[in-house]
């Protein structure tokens, strides 16, 4: 025992390392060591574990502290986003692990909420949660996060995940009635696609107050006593709102491209010598350029220029941007190709762009399924026919 103590003393040099206790009734002195940050082996130890840590749980960086409530400790979250949050946002926007970017459903809070503080309901997609909490800098409120399987408010409502039953379940499960005196929930307006206000009221006794579309208006909405003006009620689709969607549009492409690439080079190599690798490369490169132009036209230019392209059907919007991008490709290779090949390159850019722009309908907040289906019934046969013509003409042109 004495040896052990001495050893420890030796390890942590300095007087503060050991504090002697009284020698009582002839027993060996007991040394109670206070922790030291001095380095004896390896690097300096990190801070002591937080009192909120629990075995089997992970404490999240955005939780400031836990406050006591009638239902037990409730996490108070920060209203300032940090580096980790921004990095998470960027990766979700790039389509990286977007499906797993979620937080635990349940009750959270900001500020110092009490029995009369408002209850804001949101989805458990981390991006939705961050968008809300960063707007709550000067508010005392409860945040009820419902389990939308990590999907944003509007999409989850459309998929019946952010739905009446889930809101009712969360209200009951979180024992909200013990936390607040009023019986009112503020839901984001876009959840209305999945949540029926009168059924929520019937099933759990809470009245639904439809909040604004955008979290940035929530403070003003509450200040005005729960009144939203027209602009708070309408969705927008600004240039920036469209630009942030582009990376996800592009993130869908590597897989089909992986299958298209070998086909492009294979078909481009067929000619009078049966197959030539050098031709495959030189002609394949042109097709690849047209393909890239199509992507640029349909997944980048069409979304950005959306309201300014003077046609309504997305397939047509994409066709126009595709033609523009295709003309640029033809201009680059002009001296090396015959007119049929020029037309094929233009056609490829046009078809790819038209198809991708048509698929952008799913990312916009204003296309109706009836409309999308109508334009698809017309566009897809034409796109397929154009692709087939391009294929035949491209191989045929090699036998000129």
């Amino acid at each position, binding site marked *: 025992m004495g040896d052990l103590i001495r050893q420890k003393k030796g390890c942590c040099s300095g007087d503060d390392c050991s504090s002697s206790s009284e020698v009582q009734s002839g027993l060996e002195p007991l040394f109670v060591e206070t922790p030291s940050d001095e380095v004896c082996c390896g690097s300096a130890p990190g801070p002591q574990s937080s009192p909120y840590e629990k075995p089997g749980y992970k404490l999240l960086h955005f939780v400031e502290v836990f406050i006591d409530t009638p239902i037990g400790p409730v996490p108070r979250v920060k209203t300032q986003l940090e580096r980790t949050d921004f990095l998470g946002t960027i990766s979700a926007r790039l389509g990286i692990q977007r499906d797993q970017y979620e937080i635990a459903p349940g009750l959270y809070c900001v500020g110092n909420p009490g029995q009369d503080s408002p209850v804001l309901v949101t989805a458990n997609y981390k991006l939705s949660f961050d968008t809300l909490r960063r707007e709550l800098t000067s508010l005392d409120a409860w945040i009820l996060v419902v389990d939308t399987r990590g999907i944003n408010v509007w999409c989850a409502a459309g998929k019946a995940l952010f739905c009446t039953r889930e809101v009712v379940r969360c209200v009951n499960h979180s024992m909200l009635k013990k936390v607040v005196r009023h019986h009112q929930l503020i839901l984001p307006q876009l959840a209305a696609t999945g949540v029926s206000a009168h059924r929520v009221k019937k099933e759990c006794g809470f009245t639904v107050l439809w909040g604004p579309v955008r979290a940035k208006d929530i403070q003003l909405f509450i200040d005005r006593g729960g009144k939203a003006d027209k602009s708070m009620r309408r*969705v927008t689709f600004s240039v920036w709102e469209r630009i942030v969607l582009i990376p996800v549009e592009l993130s869908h492409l590597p897989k089909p491209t992986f299958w298209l690439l070998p086909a492009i080079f294979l078909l481009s190599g067929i000619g009078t010598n049966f197959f030539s690798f050098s031709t495959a490369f030189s002609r394949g490169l042109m097709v690849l350029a047209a393909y890239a132009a199509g992507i640029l036209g349909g997944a980048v230019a069409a979304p950005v220029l959306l309201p300014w392209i003077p046609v309504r*059907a997305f397939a047509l919007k994409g066709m126009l941007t595709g033609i523009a991008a295709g003309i640029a490709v033809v201009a680059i290779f002009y001296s090396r190709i015959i007119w049929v090949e020029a037309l094929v390159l233009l056609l490829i850019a046009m078809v790819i762009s038209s198809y991708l722009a048509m*698929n952008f309908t799913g990312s916009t907040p*204003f296309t109706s399924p009836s*409309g999308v289906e109508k334009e698809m019934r017309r566009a897809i046969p034409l796109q397929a026919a154009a692709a087939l013509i391009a294929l035949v003409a491209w191989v045929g042109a090699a036998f000129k």
Partner: protein
Amino acid sequence: MENFRYLPGVTTLKLDTEACVGCSMCESVCPHTVFQMKGGKAEIEDIDGCMECGACAQNCPTSAIRVTPGVGCASYIIQTWIRGKKSASCSGVKCC
């Protein structure tokens, strides 16, 4: 959203004015201000603004509003054509 108009004359939206009790819920939840309250009843003010999200019908206490709701997403619709409505999923194609 006046800048953003999609195909006209396609929406499945229908309002039964007789059944309307004038609660104005549809006006509150519509993200394209399709409805407007006039004389204590809801009226469809901008039918081609409708994107068939279904929020109005979902929140009409007297079922005065009918619409076939859905996702206006081409890749989702392609999936319903290929695999049928039941097994088509948005998460598979990540349209939104």
